[in-house]
């Protein structure tokens, strides 16, 4: 059996320029739809190689923030910087995202990997090598020819992560990737995320799960009402939150923050 961490290194060896630690930053980021402000005044810096988790109650704007950072939606105000420069199409290619529910093309497992790699301009023997490595990493070698959508939820999410990683991103966004999985599948997915990090991929993970946040996070961004309520090292924030809203949420209490309801 191949070692996943070393496989990740083979992906990243393809990356032409070994740039200085990638950083994604947001400055005064805001997002509104039809007059409803859903994200406001977000400033953040994510350091290369770090594992960031985003936490907060439903509707706090976690998934929305992820999509803004990934460039899937355009902010209403503020800006996103990639290595200090505005996020552009080329920079987007250095990022990948795994969704809560894996989106699989109506094709075989292998063809799903093939599609992503072709879009990323990987051709010839390099593509075959990466496909083989991705299958090995996701432990899906035996299912390579199976229709992707007949796989179990856990297998599909593993494939989604392997597909994202095969494109050799610097940064991987994960939007509650294990929320609908059983403990065994969750464990397998977490192992994959760990492998990615070990290979130097910066990860940004949205989760509701405290234990998962501790396992997969170095830093935490705690959101409430479309704002960042608190940031800091994950252990420190989870054990001793400074903000009232984070403390309430972590203790399982209902908390009504002034201004929070208008954003719901």
């Amino acid at each position, binding site marked *: 059996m191949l070692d996943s961490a070393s496989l990740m290194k083979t992906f990243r060896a393809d990356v032409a320029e070994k740039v200085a630690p990638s950083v994604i930053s947001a400055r005064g980021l805001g997002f509104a739809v039809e007059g409803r402000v859903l994200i406001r005044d977000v400033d953040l810096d994510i350091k290369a190689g770090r594992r960031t988790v985003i936490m907060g109650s439903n509707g706090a704007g976690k998934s929305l923030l992820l*999509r803004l950072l*990934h*460039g*899937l939606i355009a902010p209403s105000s503020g800006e996103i910087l990639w290595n200090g420069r505005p996020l552009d*199409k080329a920079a*987007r*290619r250095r*990022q*990948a*995202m795994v*969704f809560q529910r894996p*989106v699989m*093309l*109506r*094709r075989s497992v292998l063809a799903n990997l093939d*599609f*992503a790699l072709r*879009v*990323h301009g990987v051709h010839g023997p390099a593509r075959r090598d990466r496909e083989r490595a991705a299958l090995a990493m996701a432990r899906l070698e035996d299912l390579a020819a199976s*229709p992707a*959508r*007949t796989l179990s939820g856990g297998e599909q999410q593993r494939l989604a992560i392997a597909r994202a990683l095969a*494109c050799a991103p610097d940064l991987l966004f994960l939007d509650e990737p294990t929320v609908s999985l059983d403990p065994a599948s969750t464990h397998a997915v977490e192992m994959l995320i760990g492998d990615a990090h070990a290979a130097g991929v910066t990860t940004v993970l949205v989760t509701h799960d405290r234990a998962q946040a501790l396992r997969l996070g170095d830093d935490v961004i705690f959101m409430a009402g479309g704002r960042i309520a608190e940031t800091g090292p994950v252990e420190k924030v989870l054990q001793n939150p400074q903000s009232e809203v984070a403390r309430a949420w972590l203790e399982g209490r209902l908390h009504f923050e002034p201004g929070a309801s208008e954003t719901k």
Partner: protein
Amino acid sequence: MDSFGSILTEAFGLILIWDPDLIEIIGLSLRVTLTAVIVACVIGLPLGAAVGAFRFPGRTIVAVVLNALMGLPPVVVGLMVYLMLSASGPLGPLQLLYTPMAMIIAQTILVTPIIAALTKQVVEDLHREYVEQFASLGVGPLDRVGALLWDARYSLLTVALAGFGRAVAEVGAVIIVGGNINHVTRVMTTTIALETSKGNLELALALGVVLLAIALFVNAAVMAVRASAVRAAYA
């Protein structure tokens, strides 16, 4: 008039005898209609997919027009094509009037809006599912259309089938631009119209049964392909 049973017997008799004239008529029907459907797919699939997948100014207008054109009366299409291809029309020098090519053109015009409008519907639904993944991977417009069409391929087979059904059954357009000329442009539907006008209702109905049998066979074949695709979660 004879009972329906004897009409069925006559229909099967027509096929069993393998009457060369009938075979020629069936062959021409299929050749004209299948060619028209293929051409309509070549135009309508990418067009429908583009309208289904992209936001652009005038998109709603295009969609409304496509939907409206689905209801084009064949006779109107026949007249339009006749006026274009007539010796006194702009395309007269091509001398296509009263040829199978004229019938293909008319049926293509009839079928393309159907293919495009139904494709738009199918692709729009699929695109809603794929759009974030595509954006995340940075898939370009051409690749998007290609991937959506390919992934919707089994639904689109049904779309093509709808077009086939419309074309193979219409008589109004082909009788005007084809002229129902024996051994040249006589197809199933124009033969049925002719036999009806001769008062040979049994023969006309028997031909109708043959046409229905062909339609049933084509539909069954497509449905079988689709059923296997559903099992693979491809449809």
